[in-house]
């Protein structure tokens, strides 16, 4: 096992080291790991047995598989119809479906999985910001990034007043892009105002939400942008250390980020800010910010109760900024060009641009940067190239899948933070999975529920059991099991207990796709109760 004594959060690096040994993790290896971490072996065991890709408590390390996610299971894309227990969790290659995993790498159909297509000219008012330089060759290197103006804002900040920079960020109206839409400046202010000799800046690069792959190009193509932004955060809030929590499914980005950090440190551009990368091991719930912190600390990655919020007690109980990759990456641009410029990029009340991900049954799936508040139609029909030849779009999911599910009649809804709320839905990560007349919406919702079931951490009763019970009822509707009479009441009861009582956003949001199904596709749902699948996808027993 390597020496990780300088690590801000040694658990994940040590666990990765331990996994280098073949076969199931032995008791001796686990004890060694626990000794290195100074934690009781039982706790390490609990934590390590949690992850999809760890080899503890499992006979063999998961080394290959195809994606069982919502985009990859649509007809004509991947396997067409998922089977329980089969398929890896969505690895964020939905625009290149079907995705698969072999030899430690995740691949879709594209030759270069990390380069976003330029948005179509048919979407008005497109001024790319985060993706402005991303297609420039050599941007990944320090020289390339500096040639695009990089590190100027960090340098300037060191010479000027951090409080002014925070005011600019506040005036820009930048909201968190990871899902919850919390104002960035309020979070940074809270950490700045919390006294503490040590504080942390953490980047949430877990991007586990199915149908979401917008951080992917930034992590692979523009690592210095994120590094600069995190160092800026450190400077503003008074933190000298940072950790990027990177999902297991982006192994290439691990190399890219480490190389970029080493280059930046060698050139001494970070002003002493000590940044490290920790790789996850396969778990969607680790994207929930408090699970993420537990994961870094080597505890079982169940979410924490809040308050206290991470701004007060975050990593190792210290004040911590946690933001999404995209949120961080907007910061240097705002500091460069000002709050008014940034605000004006959004539609209506919305400020700035948003990285949307569109996948599923569209002609040009991909991550696109559009004004925040662009409509679903602009994303799906404009940037995404619209329906596949000869097909009709039937609807789309929101927030990846965790924001809800809407029908084609809602294509003109703005994809901003406010509009989806009229349906009780949320913009979330800004991912959209499109389905058309060849797809069965009931089967799609079942695929989503299978994902939640597999990712439910098991901490709380309503989600741990509720996701399974809902998926079983969707199994019955899609011809995989015997249906029961009380279906609609059960959907209602279980969905409401999960939304209200679950301990974290996973269980609270899991019923939203089902709400969309019941509200907007009731006819298709009722047909299934009679043993008919209008799209011809489901086969009944």
């Amino acid at each position, binding site marked *: 096992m390597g020496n990780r004594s300088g690590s801000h959060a040694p658990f994940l690096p040590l666990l990765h080291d331990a996994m280098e040994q073949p076969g199931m993790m032995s*008791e001796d290896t686990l004890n060694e790991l626990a000794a290195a971490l100074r934690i009781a072996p*039982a*706790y390490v065991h*609990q934590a390590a047995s*949690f992850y999809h890709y760890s080899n503890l408590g499992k006979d063999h390390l998961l080394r290959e598989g195809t994606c069982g996610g919502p985009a990859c299971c649509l007809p004509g894309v991947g396997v067409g119809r998922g089977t329980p227990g089969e398929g890896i969790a969505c690895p964020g290659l939905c625009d290149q479906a079907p995705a698969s995993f072999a030899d430690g790498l995740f691949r879709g159909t594209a030759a270069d999985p990390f380069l976003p297509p330029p948005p179509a000219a048919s979407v008005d008012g497109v001024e790319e910001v985060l993706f402005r330089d991303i297609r420039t060759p050599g941007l990944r290197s320090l020289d390339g990034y500096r040639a695009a103006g990089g590190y100027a804002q960090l340098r300037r900040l060191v010479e000027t007043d951090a409080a002014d920079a925070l005011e600019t960020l506040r005036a820009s109206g930048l909201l968190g892009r990871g899902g919850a839409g919390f104002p960035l400046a309020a979070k940074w202010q809270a950490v700045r105002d919390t006294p503490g000799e040590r504080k942390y800046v953490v980047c949430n690069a877990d991007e586990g939400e199915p149908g979401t792959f917008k951080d992917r190009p930034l992590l692979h193509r523009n690592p210095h942008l994120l590094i600069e932004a995190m160092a800026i955060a450190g400077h503003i809030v008074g933190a000298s250390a940072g950790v990027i929590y990177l999902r297991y499914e982006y192994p290439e980005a691990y190399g890219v980020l480490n190389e970029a950090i080493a280059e930046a440190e060698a050139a001494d551009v970070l002003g002493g800010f000590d940044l490290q990368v920790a790789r996850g091991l396969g778990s969607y719930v680790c994207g929930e910010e408090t699970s993420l912190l537990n994961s870094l600390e080597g505890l079982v990655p169940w979410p924490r109760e809040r308050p206290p919020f991470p701004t007060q007690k975050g990593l190792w109980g210290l004040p911590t900024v946690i933001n999404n990759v995209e949120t961080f990456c907007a910061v240097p641009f705002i500091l460069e060009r000002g709050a008014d410029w940034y605000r004006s990029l959004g539609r209506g009340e919305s400020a700035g641009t948003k990285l949307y991900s569109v996948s599923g049954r569209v002609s040009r799936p991909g991550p696109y940067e559009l004004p925040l508040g662009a409509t679903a139609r602009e994303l799906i029909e404009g940037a995404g190239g619209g329906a596949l030849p000869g097909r009709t779009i039937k609807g789309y999911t929101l927030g990846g899948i965790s924001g809800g599910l809407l029908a084609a009649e809602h294509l003109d809804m703005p994809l901003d933070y406010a509009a989806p709320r009229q349906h009780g839905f949320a913009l979330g990560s800004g991912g959209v999975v499109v389905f058309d007349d060849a797809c069965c919406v009931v089967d799609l919702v079942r695929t989503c529920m299978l994902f939640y079931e597999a990712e439910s951490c*098991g901490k709380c*009763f*309503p989600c741990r*059991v509720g996701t399974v*019970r809902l998926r079983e009822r969707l199994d019955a509707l899609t011809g995989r099991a015997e249906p029961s009479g009380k279906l609609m009441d059960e959907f209602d009861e279980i969905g409401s207990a999960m939304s209200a009582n679950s301990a974290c956003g996973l269980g609270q949001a899991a019923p939203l796709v089902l709400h969309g199904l019941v509200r907007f596709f009731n006819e298709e749902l009722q047909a299934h109760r009679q043993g008919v699948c209008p799209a011809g996808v489901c086969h009944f027993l």
Partner: protein
Amino acid sequence: MSITATIDGKSIEVQEGESILEAARRCGAEVPTLCYDSRVDPSASCRMCVVKVEGRRLPVASCAHALQEGMNVVTADDDLEENRRTILKLVLSENPTEECRSCIERGPCELHSLAGDYGVATDYYDGAISGRIPEDSNPFIARDYSQCILCYRCTRVCNELEQAHAIIPEGRGFETNIVAPFHESLLGSNCTFCGQCIQTCPTGALMDRKMLGKAKAEDVTKVRSICPFCGTGCGIELNVAHGEFIGVTPDWNAPASAGSLCVKGQFGIDFINSPERLKTPLVRRDGVLQPASWDEALGIIVDKFQTVKAESGPGAFALWSSARAPSEGNFLMQKLARAVIGTNNIDNCSRT
């Protein structure tokens, strides 16, 4: 510092830091819980104790949040009760039990009592079950996770309170299992067989194997006593059925132990029924130990002590007192050593 808040319309003053749950219960609110054990950190898992707090979008787990100044809490209304009922139906469906071992032998378990209160004892959902029964022939703890609801009380008690770190939840979600890492049986694990996991379990998943099948709950009488094994003096209840001792449960109100026991108090008291138990002193006559009176036995001891003291002096004696004896007994023992025999060679087993 004390703070004032409102619970179910009643104003209440509490010390800062008290949980909403504890405060509500003191106010007389019946807030249901399944994963709560006041001795360990709340895990906020069962979500039965959620209450409405004015200004919060979603209900709050009352076990895990302190009451705050000015908070306005509602512990029960139609939504809360409906969702609690649904959670019970979900959790009952996870590992439905036709015959709960606890309800039959220990008295109504927390799960089935609540299920009864909410009228869902048999009205739960259909679906797959998650529990399993490990191969575990250990003589003390009967583990059957087909009655487990994954409340994580046993694992928190074992890790946080006992610090034994024997059992832990392994895996995730519906597939989570309670395991002793790398061991099917607790025998090879870190388990000290304190039995505390059995005592906190709100279902029949963990049972005292020695008591299993011995009696029905309604035939058991509990007799308060003190564990005789060591000077800690933990409070125990001797469980008696049909005139016979069948096992021990902790006395939760005992000042010295408040429900904690070790393997000796929990599982070692069955010497009461042992045929090998000594009931009179034994004296060796012609090489064979034979029953004798106390007068005869003590007479022999006095004679021999006097002989040794006359031949070799008091320094030839060393007295070793027992941790099982009370303080008064230990005091008398050192009096015997110093004043009667005349030696300072006196010690106590609990010092080593």
